[in-house]
């Protein structure tokens, strides 16, 4: 499928998706609660079969916190980017996609460790790199006078 057909196909799968064509990839912005369902359909639908999640990034947008999923289809050689956002900074939560793409298990742990975003239904959500009582360093409002030197 080319990009236009792909966009239409995905719109059929989930009507609340906001599809944008960026310079490199097609971006799908979904509201948080729809993430798991759309992810499952993206993987299991044989006409698109996005089965290779190659990058899971947590981002602090300043006001919102979000997660960016880069997914690729090994059969059809296409890539899309899935994005979710939440403005809840105190207790950000998304559904875990670890049972759709098993690689998300480690990546989501890393996002939890560095940004504090919790993933519901994750098999083993613990801190990974940092000690248990450390804050969430990748947040823009994180201050650690002892260990971090800012200009």
């Amino acid at each position: 499928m080319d990009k236009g057909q792909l966009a239409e196909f995905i719109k059929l799968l989930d009507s609340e998706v906001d599809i944008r064509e960026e310079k490199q990839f097609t971006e799908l912005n979904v509201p948080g609660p729809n993430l798991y369902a759309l992810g499952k359909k993206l993987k299991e639908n044989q006409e698109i079969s996005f089965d290779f999640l190659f990058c899971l990034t947590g981002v602090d947008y300043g006001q919102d916190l979000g997660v960016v999923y880069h997914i690729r289809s090994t059969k059809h050689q296409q890539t899309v980017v899935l994005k979710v956002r939440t403005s809840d900074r105190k207790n950000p939560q998304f559904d875990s996609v670890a049972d759709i793409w098993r690689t998300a298990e480690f990546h989501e742990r890393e996002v939890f460790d560095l940004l504090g975003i919790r993933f519901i239904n994750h098999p083993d959500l613990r801190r990974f790199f940092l000690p248990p009582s450390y804050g969430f360093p990748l947040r823009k409002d994180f201050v650690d006078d002892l260990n971090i030197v800012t200009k």
Partner: protein
Amino acid sequence: MEETMKEITGEDQKYVINMGPQHPSTHGVLRLVVSLKGEIVRNVEPHIGYVHRGMEKMCESITYPQIIHLTDRMDYLSAHINNEAVCLNVEKALEIDIPDRVRVIRTIMSELTRIQSHQLWWASFGMDLGGLTCFFYGLRDREKIMDIFEETCGGRLIVSYNCPGGLMYDIHPNFQKRTKDFIKYFRKILPEYDQLLTGNVIFKERTRGIGRLSLEDAISYGVTGPSGRASGFSCDVRKHDPYSAYDRVNFREVLFNDGDTYHRYLARIEEMKESMNIIDQLIDNIPEGPFAVKMKPVIKLPEGEYYQRVETARGELGVFIISDGNKNPYRVKFRSPSFVNLSVLNLISKDFKIADLVAIAGSLDFVIPDIDR
């Protein structure tokens, strides 16, 4: 009575041992908490973070050319390829046209880096399995590549040779001749490696059928690089998404069907041969031209998100830059191959013995600073 026994010892009478952060076989500071039943491994839990330097956070307060020096230290065995990833990303965002000479030289250096990384992997893999002589043979040959790097780039392991726009300096006049001599020498020596390990009965018994990774698991866990290709996952970025000069060379993507330790080993040996073929095709015709494009003194990427994938010796490295128009990036994410390859260790070492765990970890070939960043 039996119920009380079970309460005291736990349901399975597990025996938990610690392959601690300092261990000759974990290739760096990695702590593996292994639950055993007798000699059989039941569960492997990696504890990482001993070398966490907060690279992604650091990148938010430095400029784009400075990121390159950080990426060197991420997966230090593929230092040149890591640098290339960031440079390509920045050049793609600024839409600069890179001269041919730069492309070809970057490709040659990447392939030399790949050979050098696989040589070190072979040396330490042999040593882990007990054939201590392999260590010395592998490193002896690797020194020749290190000398080539030192002459041209100034550094043996940490090269920092790329910069956005091209290379830091032109190649040394001896570079072509030394590389050609090295390829000729290594082609003769590589069968020696085969004699020492590949055909050995003991080695085959230790690695055949051990730690099998199926194709669906490889895709689902995202295992790329030689470990993924040995399971049949066609994921070579050099073929699917060519960058630098890879679209003009002829080489074979090394794929096997049987994802066990032995085939992961064979995949890397074959990759070394393919790398030598690539270098052979390029080394004689390095195009003339400038070795860098003049860039502005302060590099600012236009607003947006940019992703670049490269093929390091371990797998697919992804550099994801989110820019808001300033001279420092807004967010940089390194998708490191070793981090993802580590996640599959628990799955494939279940129900094998401790000695096999060492062989499997060696064949997955991770470098700990790449996991921790």
